[in-house]
């Protein structure tokens, strides 16, 4: 439909629109008009994504001065979904705008790491992100290509002797990436025609044209109308300085599913050092020293040039060749020092010595058998005392190291990740005195038997990472299905939204059926409370619940556990008790594991089992990867069970530090925060089953603690509104009865009597517009 929203023509790819979508658009449009940030909560299953896309692309169409839409998602699957919806929207828009060049043109693309975009047959096979990056660099670094060009022009076959044991010299020839070269050759001609490109579309296109999809996408970002990428490309200074620096102020930045944005922010500025990291960093230093010595012998001029450059100042550093694609400074752009590097680390050898000392200090710290927590000031003071390393110099670590690596023309950067981590750690510690903590944990407290010492530089202040985003871009939209309590977010992210709104869902039928199951059929209470979760009776009751449910619910069921460890334990127990076998009488079982590839495959098979009518149960973890980005809509999820309350691990030192910080800075009570976080997570999990109002699903909270007021209150309104008084304290058999009734009622053909009430047609919108807008649009929130 096409309709007029306070003077803006909006193209929406459906014949009807939910009233809350309309209100959402209204609120969003006003925020865009006001050129400010906004915070919008709309229940899951009301089509947030398409609403956002539809309004913003329409806005772009009407206001040419508006910049790109930068759509940030948490995961790659979400990115794919956004692009798929956008493709539908654009296709639909063609109906009104016409086809062909100049009419309905839009360039939208997803951007991801090289690991997901690389099509080089060998490099793409590398295991981790770092190794793919390094594999790429090995083939595409400017000095490698210069050398190759040089050799071609001279026609010699002399190998480059000065590189540090790279495999190319052993081959005797310099290997280059065909795709990268193809892209370079095409130069400014290398353009994507308008369209919507998912990652696999980019790969296909790259393969067809012989251009590197990654560099093509990076290049095309400048021309794109819509860019979809991961949060970190916007929030994490290391990455955003590399990728998003060029974006203009007028861009509209959207953070979807942003209920966890504070965690993303603090992780973006945190670094952890493991024992292995420090050991490897030590080896790195040895290697670097060797390289420096060799370089000094072979080509002393190069090191001298670097020295001169450092004397001249860091400003020139941007021009340093080979720097196109390195992780940028871990500190926020505003805090990066623009001074010359201090004299004591300008010489490569001196810098090595400096790092050696710092590393020794870190090793010493890590040897401590007890948990310690320090503020940066204390840490720096100690550092000064013990090894005479001062904060000012530390700040320059990142820049000094990357300058050195580039000077030495190092391409296998993945090998040098450890020393880079150490340098990043140093830079952050040197830069920030407040909002950070340095925590040393000898082992993960959940696995005390496995020694795993970690030196954690932990950022506590989520607003730090968001600050440059808010100040750089004119409109930032933060949205999710569960942003409660919504007034908390402006405080912890420290920004002033022009619009804060929480929308309600209008339903014509109760397609959600949340129930709280507190007891098993034997009336024994059920809970994952620490003292109860190991009880075989509780485990059996949880198992019976799933068995009974699988006999009643058609197609797919999803179950979330509080942790992998608990899930492992309970699965083993259920296997013993024969509960798994009983479930398999009705449905197949698939389980999330720590191996992502296997989990992906299990998900795929789960869907096939649901499609084929066999039905299946998917066992998953509340804070795991599946809970984050996979939908169990329609027949893939007719019931979702949340076994227990998914609390964070509350004894964690890092969490303690964060809670202390929240209490001191924002007067947020620890218990409140923890409960909010847990319930928010649970709501997020159960929300996975509803993707539209035609959809329906049971939502089972299986823990007696959900019955309590302090938990229930924290559930988002769209759940509590449907949580009937009678459904708050059920036993398993009563729940099965409720489920049976509910599913029978919902399986009836969907009644479309909703038109006018929960659905608005184009005509209704036109009438609304003529009448002067939606009555009570403002009052819709609250």
């Amino acid at each position, binding site marked *: 439909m096409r309709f007029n929203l306070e003077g803006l023509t909006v193209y929406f790819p459906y014949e*009807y629109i939910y009233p809350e979508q309309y209100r959402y658009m209204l609120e969003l449009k006003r925020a865009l008009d006001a050129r400010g940030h906004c915070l919008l909560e709309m229940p899951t299953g009301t089509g947030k994504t398409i609403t956002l896309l539809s309004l913003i692309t329409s806005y772009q169409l009407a206001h040419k001065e508006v910049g790109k839409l930068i759509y940030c998602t948490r995961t790659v699957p979400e990115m794919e979904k956004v692009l798929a919806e956008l*493709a539908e929207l654009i296709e639909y828009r063609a109906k009104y705008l016409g086809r062909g060049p100049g009419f309905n043109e839009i360039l939208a693309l997803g951007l991801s790491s090289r690991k997901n975009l690389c099509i080089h047959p060998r490099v793409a*096979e590398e295991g981790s992100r770092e190794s793919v990056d390094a594999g790429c660099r090995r083939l595409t670094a400017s000095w490698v290509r210069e050398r190759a060009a040089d050799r071609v022009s001279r026609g010699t076959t002399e190998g480059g002797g000065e590189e540090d044991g790279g495999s190319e010299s052993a081959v005797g020839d310099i290997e280059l990436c065909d795709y990268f070269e193809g892209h370079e050759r095409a130069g400014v001609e290398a353009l994507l025609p308008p369209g919507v490109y998912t990652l696999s579309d980019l790969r296909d296109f790259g393969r067809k044209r012989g251009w590197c999809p990654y560099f093509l996408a990076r290049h095309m970002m400048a021309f794109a109308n819509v860019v979809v990428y991961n949060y970190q490309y916007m929030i994490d200074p290391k990455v955003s300085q590399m990728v998003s620096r060029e974006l203009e102020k007028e861009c509209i930045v959207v953070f979807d599913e942003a209920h966890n944005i504070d965690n993303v922010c603090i992780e973006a500025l945190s670094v952890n050092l493991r024992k292995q990291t420090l050991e490897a960093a030590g080896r790195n230093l040895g290697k670097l020293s060797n390289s420096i010595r060799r370089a000094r012998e072979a080509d002393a001029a190069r090191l001298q040039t670097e020295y001169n450059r450092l004397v001249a100042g860091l400003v020139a550093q941007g021009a340093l060749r080979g720097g196109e694609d390195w992780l940028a400074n871990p500190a926020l752009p505003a805090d990066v020092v623009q001074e010359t590097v201090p004299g004591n680390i300008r010489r490569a050898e001196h810098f090595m010595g400096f790092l050696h000392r710092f590393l020794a200090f870190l090793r010493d710290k890590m040897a401590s058998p007890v948990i310690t927590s320090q503020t940066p000031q204390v840490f720096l003071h100690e550092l000064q005392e013990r090894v005479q390393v001062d904060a000012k110099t530390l700040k320059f670590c990142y820049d000094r190291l990357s300058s050195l690596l580039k000077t030495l023309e190092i391409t296998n950067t993945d090998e040098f990740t450890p020393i880079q981590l150490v340098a990043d750690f140093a830079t952050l510690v040197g830069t920030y005195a407040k909002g950070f903590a340095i925590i040393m944990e000898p082992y993960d407290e959940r696995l005390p038997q496995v020694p795993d010492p970690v030196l954690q530089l932990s950022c506590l202040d989520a607003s730090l990472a968001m600050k440059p985003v808010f100040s750089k871009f004119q409109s930032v939209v933060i949205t999710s299905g569960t942003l409660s309590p919504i007034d908390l977010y402006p405080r912890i992210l420290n920004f002033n939204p022009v619009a804060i709104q929480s929308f309600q869902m209008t339903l014509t039928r109760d397609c959600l059926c949340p129930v709280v199951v507190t007891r098993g059929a034997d009336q024994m209470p059920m809970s994952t409370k620490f003292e109860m979760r190991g009880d075989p009776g509780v485990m059996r009751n949880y198992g019976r619940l799933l068995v009974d449910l699988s006999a009643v619910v058609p197609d797919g069921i999803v179950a979330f556990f509080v942790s992998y460890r608990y899930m492992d334990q309970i699965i083993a127990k259920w296997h013993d008790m024969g509960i798994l076998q009983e479930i398999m009488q009705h449905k197949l079982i698939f389980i999330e594991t720590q191996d992502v590839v296997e989990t992906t495959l299990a998900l795929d098979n789960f869907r096939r089992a649901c499609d084929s009518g066999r039905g299946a149960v998917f066992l998953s973890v509340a804070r795991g990867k599946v809970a984050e980005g996979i939908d169990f809509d329609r027949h893939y999820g007719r019931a979702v069970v949340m076994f227990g309350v998914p609390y964070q691990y509350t004894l964690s030192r890092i969490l303690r530090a964060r809670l202390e910080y929240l209490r001191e800075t924002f007067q947020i009570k620890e218990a409140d925060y923890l409960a909010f976080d847990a319930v928010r997570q649970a709501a997020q999990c159960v929300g996975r089953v509803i993707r539209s109002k035609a959809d329906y699903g049971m939502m089972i909270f299986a823990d007696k603690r959900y019955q309590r007021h302090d938990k229930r209150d924290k559930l988002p309104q769209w759940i509590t509104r449907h949580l009937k008084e009678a459904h708050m304290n059920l036993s398993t058999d009563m729940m099965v009865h409720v489920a049976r009734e509910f599913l029978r009622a919902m399986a009836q053909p969907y009644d479309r009597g909703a038109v006018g009430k929960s659905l608005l047609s184009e005509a209704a919108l036109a009438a609304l517009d003529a009448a002067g807008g939606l009555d009570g649009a403002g009052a819709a929130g609250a």
Partner: protein
Amino acid sequence: MAHEQQLITKRAWLGPGGPEGYLTVASSSLLWQPAPGSSQPGQEVRIPLAAITNNQRAKDKPLVRITVAGQQQQQPSGPGPSPQHHVFQFESVADRDAALDVLTKVTAAMAAAQMAAANGALGAEAAAAGVPGPAGAGAGPREGPAVAGGFSRMQRQQMLARDVDLKALWEELVGGKVLSEADFWSGVASRLAAAQPAAWGTSAAGGGGGPGAARGPGGPLQRRRVGLSNILQRVEAEVDGRHQRVLRVSLTPEQVAQIFAEQPAVLRAYREHVPHRMGEEDFWRRYVRHEMHKESKRKARAEGLNPSAAAASVVDDAGGDIFREAAAAVAAEAAARPGAAASHRERVDPTLDLAASEGERYQGFGYAHAATREPELDAERLRLAAAQQEAALGAAMSGLGLEDSDDLATAINRHGEVVLQGVEALARVEAQLRAGHGSGAADQRAPSAQGATGPGPGSSGRDMSASPMDEDGRGGEDGQQQRRGRRRRHSAGLADLHEPSAPRLDSLSIADPRRYFERMKDAAGGVQGGRGDGGFGARAGGLAGAAAVLAAVTPGGLPLPPLSPAAAEAALLEATPLARSLAEDEAAGVSGLEENKRKRHAPPQSEGKGVGGFVPGMSFCCLHEC
């Protein structure tokens, strides 16, 4: 008919407000006798069961209307061969239903007996002649036109002979004169066309000539898939508890095949060791023991036993090394397979691809022991943990490090995958086994092919994509097309925001539409036919069907403004002739009804303007693919 058996008798009035009497269902006829001493004396009515063509129950009223074919009823008032109706009123709906249930059963039994007799004749005749003769004795497809729905008479007969369900349906619909022969077969044809891109999972490997052969007429209907049981197999074994010796193992060939399919490592071990190094029996003893060992270890872990107790409870696994070696080899092969990452990336539905998200994480940044995440067990720390456990459990169990903590989850996932592949997976294993035993020395190559079905990246890769039923877009070569399709598969999913697509109506001539709906009710959706929209036909019979039709009406598209539900319901009641006869008595001049009457005459198939209403007796119908 004096000797006929009386089955049920209920008090009933002949017509609403008619004379009182008793209705008796007997083995061959339906009998209504006036009650002695009734104020309104009536004539006795006897209806032979064979003459009853239909019965209709009124909704919420204890009424039934019996339709009688107009030949041999004993009612003298029956003028000629036109169908006759009798309306009986019972004391309650329950009475009515009880009587009619008996009636339905009796008529069904009679029909079946007739059919059997007819078929017997047919079979005998066909056997004798070997050629389909013209107009045979009973009902048979031979009666129909030479070509119906694109099938020749011969093909039709073959299909019926092959498919019992289809035959039952045919008997019900064509035999019951609900559908014409041509309509029935065109419905079958369209259903086959719709089923052509196999809709799910796997197909039976058994089928003999393979999928190509099944393409013939009736083939796809035949391709009903034989599936595997959901149940995770456990090998039955008799164990000497004291000495932990496996005494006897019982295994069926299917179990063996399933074990091999689910655990490539066991297959590999089997191929390497049987029969050159050990006997079959020995192998399976070791296997059972190995499984017991794993089980006990799991138990010890789950119960958090202290090391010494755990060591005592864990079953000794001396012979299990062959499985561990094989598992390691399989894993190594899977890891070393070139193109694994790329093929994984291209095959997996991108909206499910968690590994892609993993590809965006940097190591070393963020939190290590984050409270929001699980403790990460990377390979190194797993090894550490395993080493510790090993130390705790004593030196007896070496090589434990090879098994990770998730092995049960992995086994269950793998089991699900094999079950979904169905017997195909087993057939593949068998083929490999045969090949392996045949060539003997070629052991090294073959297991790598098996490795491709392992739970590693890109599993269900090549060999799956080669199978015809792999519809899921995981296929190899024309992947681009399929990927595109996969992408399209995701959409916002807000189906309810779309205008409900206008029901696609196929014209179909049915002698008596009421009969169709009645049948629907009885057969509970067993009707096949023309391609209808996911609409009303099959979901409901009679009144409910009409309600569905009305539900599909776009109120905006009507010439008149929408009615109040009450008026609409009244109209709906009125739409059935039985209710109409009642309604005519009561409501003579309600304006809403007047409007509806007019509406009923709007053409039902003018889709552009919206469906005007439900017209009883019109020659249209929407059949639903079940």
